[in-house]
């Protein structure tokens, strides 16, 4: 409260709810003294769609499609984690071919998501050439998706117990060819970004997160890895084909925005390595792509997947019927965004823009339960309020009876 009273004296620079920096509605109030940001407040909830509640009204198979629509960019991460959760509950093993295909889809998604971030970061820095080039190079990845799944963004590849479609053997050479061309382009882009002295001046030492910060905020994914915290669900809790192929977790030490860019760009090469090994493993072979699943018994399961932005976590509880009784989702941005408290304060507005973008925030993934009144700047539906509403209604009904 004391903090808030102090803040009222300072100039508030609003970033959001609608702002060119943000692809999605979100509100950051930057409390500034001149160009220097002294405090940041974050308001979420503009994009809440009640996915968890919706999930309770759909049957197990439909939920895969529902969670795919949480986010258009990590549209395979959520089904991946969800399927892992149900398979954890069922205790079944997924056929090997399906595991490879799952990893291919997951890594292709990482590839396109990281390229998308590089482009956006370029745009926020006013470097539109990088923006357009990165997005141009992202196109072939989407083309591969179209070859494999028929869609550029929502792939609908995941199914409880396996995958919905096989990767045809005659498509594999095409995929290899596109990936081969892409590798050279990404190498060029990586070189251009990492060797640019002006970019280095803009990004190095900006928005530093130490290991300590990462642990305190529980940050995940490239944000954590850029600060030297070696966490990656793919290595720490292996699933799908990740234990079967050779790759390494990229980490850097400085924790600034430049290192976040380095981690993401180098991860692109690791992803391509994984994809090509997975393609080797399935090429020219035939095999089952799904395990048979008839009923989901009562119980609970958790599933994790290393999404492009970090660990994506799904929890489901079943009572033996054909739909979940509880479905809890925690997306990586939910823990990554609050790190702005450590990285933004004391920086200039120009830097805060790129620091906020540096965690690759994905708001639609993050929005779960908060409902805010924008004008009064307060949370509307907190637990107490809901209990009061419930009591009111009970009273009303009692009178009517």
């Amino acid at each position, binding site marked *: 409260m004391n903090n808030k009273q102090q803040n009222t004296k300072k100039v508030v620079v609003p970033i959001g709810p609608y702002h060119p920096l943000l692809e999605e509605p979100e509100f950051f109030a930057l409390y500034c003294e001149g160009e220097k940001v002294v405090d940041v407040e974050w308001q979420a909830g503009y994009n809440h769609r009640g996915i968890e509640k919706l999930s309770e009204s759909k049957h197990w198979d439909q939920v895969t499609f529902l969670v795919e629509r949480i986010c258009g960019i990590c549209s395979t991460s959520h089904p991946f984690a969800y399927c892992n959760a149900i398979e954890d509950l069922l205790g079944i093993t997924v056929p090997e071919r399906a595991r490879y295909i799952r990893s291919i889809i997951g890594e292709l998604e990482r590839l396109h998501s990281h390229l998308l971030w590089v482009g956006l970061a370029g745009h926020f820095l006013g470097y539109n050439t990088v923006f357009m080039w990165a997005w141009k190079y992202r196109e072939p990845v989407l083309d591969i998706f179209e070859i494999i799944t028929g869609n550029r963004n929502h792939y609908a590849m995941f199914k409880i117990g396996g995958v919905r479609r096989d990767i045809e053997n005659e498509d594999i050479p095409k995929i290899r060819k596109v990936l081969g061309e892409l590798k050279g382009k990404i190498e060029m882009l990586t070189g251009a970004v990492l060797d640019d002295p002006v970019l280095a001046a803009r990004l190095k030492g900006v928005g530093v997160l130490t290991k300590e910060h990462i642990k305190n905020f529980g940050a995940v994914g490239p944000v954590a890895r850029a600060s030297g915290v070696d966490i990656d669900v793919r290595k720490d809790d292996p699933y799908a084909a990740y234990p079967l192929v050779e790759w390494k977790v990229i980490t850097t030490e400085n924790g600034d925005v430049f290192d976040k860019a380095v981690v993401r760009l180098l991860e692109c090469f690791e992803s391509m390595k994984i994809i090509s090994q997975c393609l080797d493993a399935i090429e020219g072979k035939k095999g089952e792509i799904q395990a048979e699943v008839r009923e989901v018994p009562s119980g609970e399961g958790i599933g994790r997947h290393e999404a492009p932005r970090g660990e994506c976590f799904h929890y489901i509880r079943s009572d033996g019927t054909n739909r979940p009784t509880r479905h809890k989702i925690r997306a990586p941005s939910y823990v990554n965004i609050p790190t702005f408290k450590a990285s933004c304060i004391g920086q*200039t507005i120009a830097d805060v823009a790129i620091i906020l973008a540096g965690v690759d925030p994905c708001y639609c993934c993050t929005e779960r339960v908060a409902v805010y009144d924008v004008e009064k700047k307060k949370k509307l539906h907190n637990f107490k309020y809901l209990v009061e509403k419930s009591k009111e209604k009970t009273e009303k009904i009692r009178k009517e009876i």
Partner: protein
Amino acid sequence: MSALYIFLSFVMVFLSFSICGMLAMWIDRKLTARLQFRVGPPWYQNFADFIKLIGKETLIPEKANAFMFVASPVLGLIATTIAGTIILFISRTDTGFPADAIIVLYLLAVPSIAIILGGSASGNVLAAVGISREMKLLLGYELPFICALVISAIKSGTTTSLGSIIQFQQQNGMILGSFSGVIGFIIGVLALQGKLGLVPFDLAEAEGEIAGGSLIEYSGILLGLFKLTKAILFIAGPLFLISLYLGGFSLSSITGIISGILKYILILVLFILIRNTNPRLRIDQTLRLFWGWLTLLGFAGILLAIVGW
């Protein structure tokens, strides 16, 4: 030099610079688009944008100082056009006056001041951030820009009359041909990049950070006037640099006009290259560049010019 001559040349400069400036901005947009794998707009895009802006509603925010808010775009437009008139017509040896180059230098600073006035009159927070940046930017690039003028003035026999500078170059070759000339030209191009608000010095508008900055509250015809000012500045600024370093822009013969256009395109291409190969700088980095490296370079250039290199 009659008042009618001045008035007519003013109108002519206004029309021709607006049209050429918008075409130059189209070249900039088109080349940028091609560099970025995009198609780019058709040649009339900037004209269409301007005509559309005329037809749009002009909103004056409640908090704004209405007079300043409306007057500043007009102020910027008039100052830039006068600068253009002096550079192209009045600075001939027969009609020019001593120290007209200094007048042009002042007039070319007015559009930035107009943006500062207009932004501060609009009463918007983001505009406030924008104008504080524009102010620092103005202070930043003016010093190197003055150095660029001084180098040229010393090289051409210590004169600050544009006519004499051009005449000197016609007799002795372009000032760009000397060491100090190259230094002055580089400084001049970078300072103009800042004046025109092109990347890496577009921090006063910085769409990704402060959403348009100083111009955020402007709409309709007033925004159109700012765009028009920028279009005229897109011609007047490089033309000033051509007068100082590349031997001026002669309207008397066809070869003169063609060589003038080629000189202009050289500068335009430099702008576009710098703009597309750099990210936006922070304000402290910008000031360090202008007041540090470029001013030192400018002083070095002045010393070289005095020695006669």
